[in-house]
C-alpha cells in the first residue's frame, strides 16, 4: 500500500487538470475553493462593515466581535447537526423545545438532584450533568428518528409534534420555575469573564490549528502523489495555506485584544500574585469556552460528514434514497443515528446556553429551531437534500448572529429586526438558487 519506490506514471487526466482560464475565477478554480463559501464570506464582510459604519465604529471592535463569537456558538453547534438532517431529506423542528427539556434536565440535576447525592459543589457535578444531558438529547433524537425511520411518519410531522411535546415537558419538569444558579464549574461552559482560556492558551490553540491545517494540506498532496493522481498546482496549495494560517492567527490576535475590564483585571492580578502597575494591566480574555466547544464540534462534524462512511451514507441517502438502499446501506439505522447526533448536539448547545444564562427556564430556546435551520440553509444546505457543508452552516450561523447583534447595536426595534432577518433568509436562498441554476 505504502510502496513509494514504484513510480506511478502520472495520469494525464483532463478532469483534474484545472489550470487555465486565468484571472481571479481561474485562480479560485485552481485552488478548488468552494465559490459559494467565498460568496458568504463576502456577504459577511459587507454586513460587518456596514454595521461598523452605522454604529459609529463599535461593531468591529475586539469586544463586540468577542461577544459575537460567544453568541454565535449555540446556534452554530446545532446548525452543524441540522446540515446532516437536511442533507438526508429530513428536517428537525424540535431542536428549540428539545433544548429546553435537556437544559432543564441538566439544571435540575446540578441544582437539585446531584447536591443531595454527591454533595453541593462537588467537582464531578458539571461533568455528570453535561454527559447525562448530552445522552438525554441523543436519546430524544433517536426516539424521534426511530418513529421517522421505522414507522415512516414524515420528519416534518414527527418533529412538529416534538416541538409542542418537548416544550410542554420542559414546563412540566419544574412547573414553570426558573432553576438557578448553575454549578460554579458548569458555568465556565458558557463563557463569561472566567469561562475563557486566556491570551496565551489562545495563541497555543491558534498555532496548533495552523500547524494542523498545513499538515493536512501536505498530507493531501502526498497521498495524491503516491497514487499518481493530478494535484493542485503547488502555488494554489501554498496560497490556501498562507490564507488559512493568516485567518486563524489574525482572528485570535484580534480577539486577544479584548481585555478584562480594570476591576476584574485587578482581581485577577491579585489572585495570580502579579504586581499591579500604575497604568493598569491588559489581560486578554482569550477565546471563550463556548467558542472553543463550537470549533471542536465543527471539526468533529466535518470529519464525520466527509471522512467516515456514516457521513457518506447520509449524503447518498439525500441524493437517492433508493440507490442507497440498493447499495446495501442500512438507511433506517442511518436516519436514527442522524437524529441521535442532532439530539446530542442539542445537548451540547443546551449546556452552553444554561451555563451562559446561569439559569434554566422552560421558555429556553424558543424559536431557536428556526435560527438553526436558517443558519444551515443560508450556509448552502439544500432543502431538496444531498447538498450541504459544515463550514457553510457555521458561517451561516455567524451571518445570522451578526445581523441580529448588529441591529441591536444600532438600536433597531425588535419587530423590525425580525422583518430584516426574515427578508435576508429569503434573499439569501434566492441568490443561492440562481447561483445553482447557473452552475449546473
Amino acid at each position: 500500500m505504502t510502496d513509494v519506490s514504484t513510480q506511478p506514471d502520472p495520469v494525464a487526466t483532463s478532469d483534474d487538470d484545472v489550470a487555465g482560464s486565468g484571472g481571479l475565477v481561474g485562480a479560485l478554480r485552481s485552488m478548488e475553493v468552494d465559490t459559494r463559501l467565498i460568496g458568504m464570506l463576502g456577504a459577511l464582510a459587507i454586513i460587518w462593515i456596514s454595521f461598523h459604519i452605522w454604529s459609529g465604529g463599535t461593531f468591529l471592535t475586539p469586544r463586540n466581535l468577542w461577544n459575537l463569537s460567544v453568541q454565535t456558538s449555540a446556534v452554530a453547534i446545532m446548525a452543524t447537526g441540522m446540515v446532516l438532517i437536511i442533507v438526508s431529506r429530513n428536517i428537525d423542528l424540535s431542536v428549540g423545545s428539545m433544548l429546553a427539556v435537556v437544559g432543564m434536565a441538566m439544571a435540575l440535576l446540578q441544582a437539585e438532584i446531584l447536591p443531595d447525592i454527591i454533595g453541593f459543589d462537588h467537582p464531578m457535578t458539571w461533568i455528570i450533568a453535561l454527559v447525562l444531558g448530552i445522552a438525554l438529547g441523543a436519546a430524544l433524537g433517536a426516539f424521534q428518528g426511530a418513529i421517522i425511520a421505522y414507522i415512516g411518519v414524515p420528519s416534518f410531522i414527527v418533529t412538529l409534534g416534538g416541538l409542542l411535546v418537548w416544550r410542554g415537558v420542559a414546563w412540566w419538569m419544574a412547573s414553570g420555575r426558573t432553576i438557578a444558579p448553575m454549578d460554579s464549574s458548569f458555568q465556565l461552559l458558557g463563557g463569561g469573564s472566567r469561562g475563557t482560556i486566556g491570551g496565551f492558551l489562545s495563541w497555543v490553540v491558534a498555532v496548533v490549528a495552523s500547524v494542523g491545517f498545513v499538515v493536512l494540506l501536505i498530507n493531501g498532496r502526498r497521498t495524491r502523489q503516491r497514487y499518481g493522481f493530478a494535484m493542485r498546482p503547488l502555488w494554489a496549495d501554498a496560497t490556501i495555506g498562507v490564507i488559512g494560517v493568516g485567518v486563524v492567527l489574525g482572528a485570535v490576535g484580534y480577539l486577544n485584544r479584548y481585555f478584562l475590564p480594570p476591576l476584574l483585571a485587578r482581581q485577577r492580578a491579585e489572585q495570580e500574585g502579579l504586581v499591579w502597575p500604575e497604568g493598569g494591566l491588559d489581560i486578554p480574555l482569550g477565546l471563550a469556552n463556548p467558542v472553543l466547544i463550537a470549533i471542536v464540534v465543527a471539526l468533529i462534524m466535518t470529519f464525520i460528514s466527509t471522512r467516515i462512511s456514516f457521513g457518506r451514507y447520509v449524503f447518498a441517502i439525500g441524493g437517492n434514497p433508493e440507490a442507497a438502499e440498493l447499495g446495501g446501506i442500512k438507511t433506517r439505522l442511518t436516519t436514527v443515528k442522524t437524529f441521535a447526533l442532532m439530539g446530542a448536539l442539542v445537548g451540547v448547545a443546551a449546556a452552553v446556553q444554561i451555563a451562559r444564562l446561569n439559569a434554566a427556564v422552560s421558555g429556553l430556546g424558543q424559536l431557536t429551531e428556526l435560527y438553526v435551520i436558517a443558519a444551515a440553509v443560508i450556509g448552502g444546505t439544500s432543502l431538496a437534500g444531498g447538498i450541504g457543508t459544515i463550514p457553510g452552516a457555521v458561517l451561516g450561523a455567524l451571518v445570522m448572529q451578526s445581523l441580529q447583534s448588529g441591529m441591536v447595536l444600532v438600536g433597531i426595534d425588535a419587530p423590525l429586526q425580525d422583518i430584516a432577518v426574515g427578508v435576508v433568509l429569503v434573499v439569501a436562498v434566492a441568490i443561492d438558487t440562481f447561483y445553482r441554476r447557473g452552475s449546473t
Partner: protein
Amino acid sequence: MAVDRTGTPLVELRDIRVAFGGVHAVDGVTIDLYPGEVVALVGGNGAGKTTLIKTLSGAHKCDSGQIYINGEPVSITTPRDAKQYAIETIYQTLALAENIDATANMFLGRELKTSFRTLDDSAMESAAREVMGRLNPKFLNFKVPVNSLSGGQRQSVAIARAVHFNARILIMDEPTAALGPAETAQVTELIKQLKAEGIGIFLISHDIHDVFDLADRISVMLQGKLVGTVNKNDVTKDDVLGMIIIGKLPGEVSSTELEALHE
C-alpha cells in the same frame, strides 16, 4: 464453447411470484443459470423482467417461490444478502446517488477504509480508475458529482460498480441502453470475458441482435409468465420475436400469425 449444464445450476429461481396490488408482475416463473452462461431475459415492456431479477438482487421480496444458489435454498431479502452470495446487479434505473462522485458511487455501502476506519478515497479512486480502464478508457470524470455526467457515462459507472466486486452472478438490466456504439462494443467484449471467467450472467435486453450475439439461452416473458426458455442455437430471431409478441413457442406459431409478425 458449449456451456456444461450437467451439474447443479449456479442459480435457480423456482416458481417465483410477485404481485403489486392486483397486478401479477411475476406469475410463477422458473429459470436457471449455469456458471459461464449468459441467459438473456426478454419480453415486452411491463413483462415483469425487472421485477423478477429484483427478487434475486434483494431489492424486492417475492410473495412465493424459492431461490437456490448452487443447489442450496437461500433467503435473499435485502441487497446486502445478495451481495453476500456475490450477486451484483446493474439496475435499469442505474441506482446512482446523483450528488456524489463516480468513485463514491462505485463503493457505496462497501467503502475502502484506512487503518483508522476513515474513508480511503485515494485507494477507492485508484481502484475505480483501474476498473474503468477495462470498461471505458475514455472515462475520466471520477471526482465530479454523477449528475454532471452524461447518460452513457452514468451507465459506465453502474457497470464498473457491478464488475469491480468479483461477482459470481451478474444481473444486467439493459446495461447498454444509453451507450454509444464504441462503448457498447466494449461492454459486449466485457460480457464475453466475464463469461469465460465462469461468471453466470442474466442479461435483460430489448436488442435482439445483442441477445443472439451474447446469450446461450433465451428466456421469454409475457405478462408476468414465462413463455419458455430456448437454446439460442435451436431458434431463429423470428422464433424469439414470436415468443415475445404472441407468447407461443416456435412450433406452435401458425403461418398466419408469423405473417402478421412481419407486417
